[in-house]
């Protein structure tokens, strides 16, 4: 539902704007599949700032923990990352499902420290979309939603902002559903 309220292009535009504002990188140098680390020289403080800007723009809470950390918390230590800090076969399977194109070349045994390079504007946009996509049909007041200030979803009657699940909850719910459906772990 939310994807139709805030279109994919608008989300991508805001992601790129957040990167530009944070890093000062030339807007024209950003593509949906640019690696934030390898292509745009985004550093850890910048990551924090990009996420913060997206949270402010969309009224969401981005995930604080990495998807493989959630895997290990839910399904056991060593399931996604082995004793050498490399991604396991199941970890790769999860990342390919979660990150699709960005992880298409990922192989088991990839060191965990190579994973930040997989972050792209497209993966950040997907993370925002996943959260917005869980917008309830109606607001708590039973009213429809509307877009306020361009990118924030609010109740059309009360003007209160939509309360959406956090990025961490989205990932945990996705993993739980996936496990119920496919018994990966």
């Amino acid at each position, binding site marked *: 539902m939310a994807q139709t309220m805030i279109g994919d292009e608008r989300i991508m535009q805001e992601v790129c704007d957040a990167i530009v504002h944070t890093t000062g990188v030339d807007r024209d140098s950003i593509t949906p599949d640019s690696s*934030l*680390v390898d292509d745009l020289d985004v*550093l*850890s*403080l910048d*990551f*924090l*700032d990009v*996420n*913060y800007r997206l949270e402010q723009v969309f009224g969401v809470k*981005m*995930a*604080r*923990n*990495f*998807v493989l*950390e959630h895997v*290990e*918390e839910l399904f056991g*230590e*060593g399931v996604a*990352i082995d*004793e050498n*800090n490399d991604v396991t076969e199941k970890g790769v399977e999860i990342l390919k499902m979660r990150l699709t194109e960005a992880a298409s070349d990922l192989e088991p045994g990839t*060191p*965990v*420290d190579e*994973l*930040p*390079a*997989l*972050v792209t504007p497209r*993966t950040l946009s997907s*993370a925002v979309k996943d959260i917005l996509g869980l917008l309830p049909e109606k607001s708590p007041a039973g009213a429809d939603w509307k877009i306020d200030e361009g990118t924030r979803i609010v109740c059309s009657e009360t003007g209160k902002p939509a309360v959406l699940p956090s*990025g*961490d909850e989205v990932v945990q719910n996705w993993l739980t559903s996936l496990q119920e459906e496919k018994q990966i772990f």
Partner: protein
Amino acid sequence: MRLYQGIDLLEIDRLKAAYDRQEAFGLNIYTEAELAYCNARPDPYPHLAGRFAAKEACLKAFGVGMGGFGATGRFREVEVESTPSGKPVLLLHGSLEKMARRLKIGQMTVSISHADNYAVASVMFLGEGTAEEGAAGEGETGETGE
């Protein structure tokens, strides 16, 4: 034995800008004890920057970086505790504590310094296992990181 090393250099002004702009930055990155320690200083920012650099250096030593994808939760899993003498000590929590166990890390040391507009931190771990190529967590940002 295997040696793990990480280093991070940070501009204090950049940390200050992020800290002041993002209302939840402090609680997202630091433990309450760290915030109490830094905020008790006449100028907290060099201390906040030093601790941020220590956290980043620790993540580099582990070879995980911050994980990207907004995985900022890891910063709170590294805590810099100050002993009465002022010597910093690393405490690990959550997934990093588990990772340290998995890698059979014994000793950990951290050193922090700041001057002018820069804070720097170096972290070393000693673990079981054999030395491998480099055995040094370079982190996601290259030689100097940030």
